[in-house]
């Protein structure tokens, strides 16, 4: 049993270290202006490490008293070490955190992890003008009149749902990438041609862990949505008939040999596509920089919108309030310097923006992305995402019911078996089974947790209910009108 104890011990040591950390300390103001300051930043954008070094050097050149230490580690490691850093009072000054989406600020405040970016309301007001109006929202970036968060990534272009086509494979198959498959039946026909006339597989579809989302979001959004929660009636919905249609369509692709075989991870599938072993890969616009890293450039591929069902009502991809990324740690003693640095970083025409976009790391919420992203593939991405109905603004329950900031119901329901949807789909897909029963069981489990917790919270006096998650007047292919939120 030594080994078993060891397992428990490893777990407990990690927990123990956290427990020993104790509470948070109040941040102290920075020392004398001009005194040497080291600002520590942490995130998990490992691919940006070299760029971060350039940013640190440039900022230090402009501000010789400030040294930037920007550390990027793998996401899994980051998720484990950041809580430990906070508990042991060694948190970085600025950290990356997107878990919780629109509720991230409230969760981080409850954890005691963040402080406002500035106490100077005027400076913040001027700075906020860099974003489109309505970007700073009470309960999402602001609380008690203080500014805690700011939109980082753009969510109009950034997201899943793009279809990449390997030009060489399409050409061998006698297909034209300028006439991409726009419907499910056209996609099947294209796959048939690719399989018949080339040695390549049709679709490189990763299925390991949660990677099936790459294909699923693209195809499911064509039929309904890329979320597993129905905002029209406040219900988890993997068992929705429209999702079943999508799943059965993918099962058909698999049965016909159109999906590259194997439960592969996304990196493997991407390499398959880049190497010409598959004709199609579906994912987000980040692939433009990923392909470039693999030595595969936009003269070798084309981008198109995901195909949609032939003649049934279509859905859309979701645009949500989820782009808040960098936060000021409550343990930082350099509030003024950190805010000054963030102001420099978010300068829409500054060094950071220009070079960040030149590297195609992401699209930014505060920049003119079209101005700096010149790759032909990006031009296609912009055109696709600007098409009406490709991505629509989803309703945000937190803006309907601010009390949801203190609710755990949705988080509890969605993070119990967090990968459940992918597990159910992949297991049934690879075994060619009907997933109805498994999907229903998963939905019932999530819904029971959700409803029970909401009722408990309601009984304890919190002003929350299922109605907060219900937007019956809205439809999946429409932008939600923010005027419909109650005035606070």
């Amino acid at each position, binding site marked *: *049993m030594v080994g*078993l104890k060891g397992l*428990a011990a490893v777990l*407990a040591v990690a927990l123990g270290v956290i427990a020993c950390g104790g509470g948070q300390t109040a941040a102290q103001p920075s020392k004398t202006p001009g005194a040497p300051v080291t600002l520590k930043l942490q995130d998990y954008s490992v691919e940006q490490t070299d760029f971060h070094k350039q940013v640190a050097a440039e900022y230090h050149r402009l501000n010789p008293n400030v040294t930037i230490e920007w550390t990027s580690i793998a996401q899994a490691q980051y*998720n484990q070490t950041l809580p430990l850093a906070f508990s042991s009072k060694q948190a970085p000054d600025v950290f990356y955190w997107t878990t919780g989406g629109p509720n991230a600020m409230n*969760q981080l405040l409850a954890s005691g992890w963040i402080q406002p970016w500035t106490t100077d309301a005027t400076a913040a007001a001027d700075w906020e003008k860099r974003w489109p109006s309505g970007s700073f929202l009470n309960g999402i970036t602001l609380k008690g009149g203080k500014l805690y968060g700011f939109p980082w990534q753009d969510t109009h272009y950034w997201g899943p749902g793009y279809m990449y086509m390997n030009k060489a494979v399409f050409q061998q198959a006698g297909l034209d990438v300028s006439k991409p498959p726009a419907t499910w039946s056209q996609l099947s026909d294209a796959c048939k041609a690719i399989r018949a006339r080339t040695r390549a597989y049709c679709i490189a579809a990763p299925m390991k862990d949660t990677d099936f989302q790459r294909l699923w979001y693209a195809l499911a959004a064509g039929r309904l949505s890329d979320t597993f929660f129905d905002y029209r009636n406040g219900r988890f919905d993997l068992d929705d008939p429209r999702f079943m249609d999508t799943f059965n369509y993918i099962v058909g692709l698999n049965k016909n040999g159109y999906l590259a*075989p194997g439960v592969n991870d996304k990196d493997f599938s991407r390499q398959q596509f880049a190497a010409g072993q598959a004709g199609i890969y579906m994912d987000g616009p980040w692939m433009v920089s990923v392909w470039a890293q693999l030595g595969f450039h936009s003269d070798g591929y084309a981008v198109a919108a995901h195909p949609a069902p032939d003649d049934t009502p279509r859905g859309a991809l979701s645009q949500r309030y989820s782009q808040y990324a960098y936060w000021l740690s409550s343990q930082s003693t350099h509030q003024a310097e950190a805010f000054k640095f963030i102001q420099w970083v978010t300068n829409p025409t500054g060094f950071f923006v220009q070079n960040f976009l030149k590297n195609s790391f992401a699209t930014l919420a505060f920049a003119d992305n079209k101005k700096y992203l010149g790759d032909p593939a990006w031009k296609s991405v912009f055109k696709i995402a600007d098409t009406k109905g490709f991505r629509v603004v989803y309703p945000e329950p937190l803006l309907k019911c601010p009390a949801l900031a203190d609710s755990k119901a949705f988080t509890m329901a969605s993070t119990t078996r967090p990968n459940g949807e992918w*597990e*159910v789909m992949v297991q049934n897909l690879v075994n060619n089974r009907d997933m109805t029963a498994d999907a229903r069981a998963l939905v019932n489990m999530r819904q029971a947790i959700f409803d029970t917790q909401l009722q408990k919270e309601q009984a304890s006096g919190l002003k929350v209910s299922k109605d907060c998650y219900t937007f019956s007047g809205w439809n999946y292919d429409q932008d939600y009108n923010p005027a419909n939120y109650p005035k606070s």
Partner: protein
Amino acid sequence: MADPGPAVAVSEPRAAPGHRHWFQAARDDSRFWIPVFLLPFVLLYFGFTLWPLLATIVYSFFDWDGVQPLNQFIGVDNYTRILSDPLFWSAFRNTLLFAVLNTVIKLPLTLLAAVLLTRRWLLFKRFFRTVFFLPIILPVALSGLVFTYLLNPSNGALNSFLLERGLLKQPIDLLGHDNTALLAVILISVWQIFGQYMLYWMAALQQVPEELYEAADLDGANERQKMLHVTIPLIRPVAVIITLLALVNALHVFGIIVTLTAGGPGRATYVVSYFIYTEAFQNAPFKYGYASAAALIFAVLAFVFVTGQGVLARRAEQLRRQYGV
């Protein structure tokens, strides 16, 4: 012999009578030294085994994400939820299956290899030992990656080889089906750990006195008879320990699952260690309390399972002696 010369009285440094008495008494008394020498071990044992175990027990009674203060006491709620969590039981079943099959496959094979590698007539013994031992040196992550690519149905070496020679019409996806994924992982794990257990058996075999084999030769025993009537009876006590070790080690399977299948396809290869890891670390908010409870339940169940094996082995040995077989 050289004259030792006049005796010289060497005076020891003088110490206060009380101090000298205490020091001498301590130096000569094992009751003083035993705890002194045990202290480092006791401290390490407390710090890295007992205390974490106690902490895990405490955490398992809390709804704790590792971030918020540890103040949401929920009694046995974590335990009742785990006991009704189908994924935990699925992972538990897979873990037992993995442990039993892994042990049943690897022990006879490694014993056979050890027997062969201890034969006098075998040439290139060192070479074979090195070959069998090599996989254990490879990091688990690397083994996982190697086999992921080797077995991949799209362009993996195994499928390409079989397809090109017409031995297969369609590629086979050993890691991609419920029926084969766990078995494939078990076989890869056996390959990886093979050298370690082969060494255990070789150590056991080298304890068998050579004279017994010589006597058996004189009696005209063949290799099979020597194996059944000399080797196995003599290594049986060690064999029980090796078996229990093999079971316990196999119950910990984690790394190979992470790198090969991530518990998939779907949940087909979920094992308890992976379940604990995903609950504790993979998705925020982390569920440290829940993961602690799962670890403890699994520890208890595994303890019962392994202890049961030991009891059964002893009982079988008693019966064997009782009936003289």
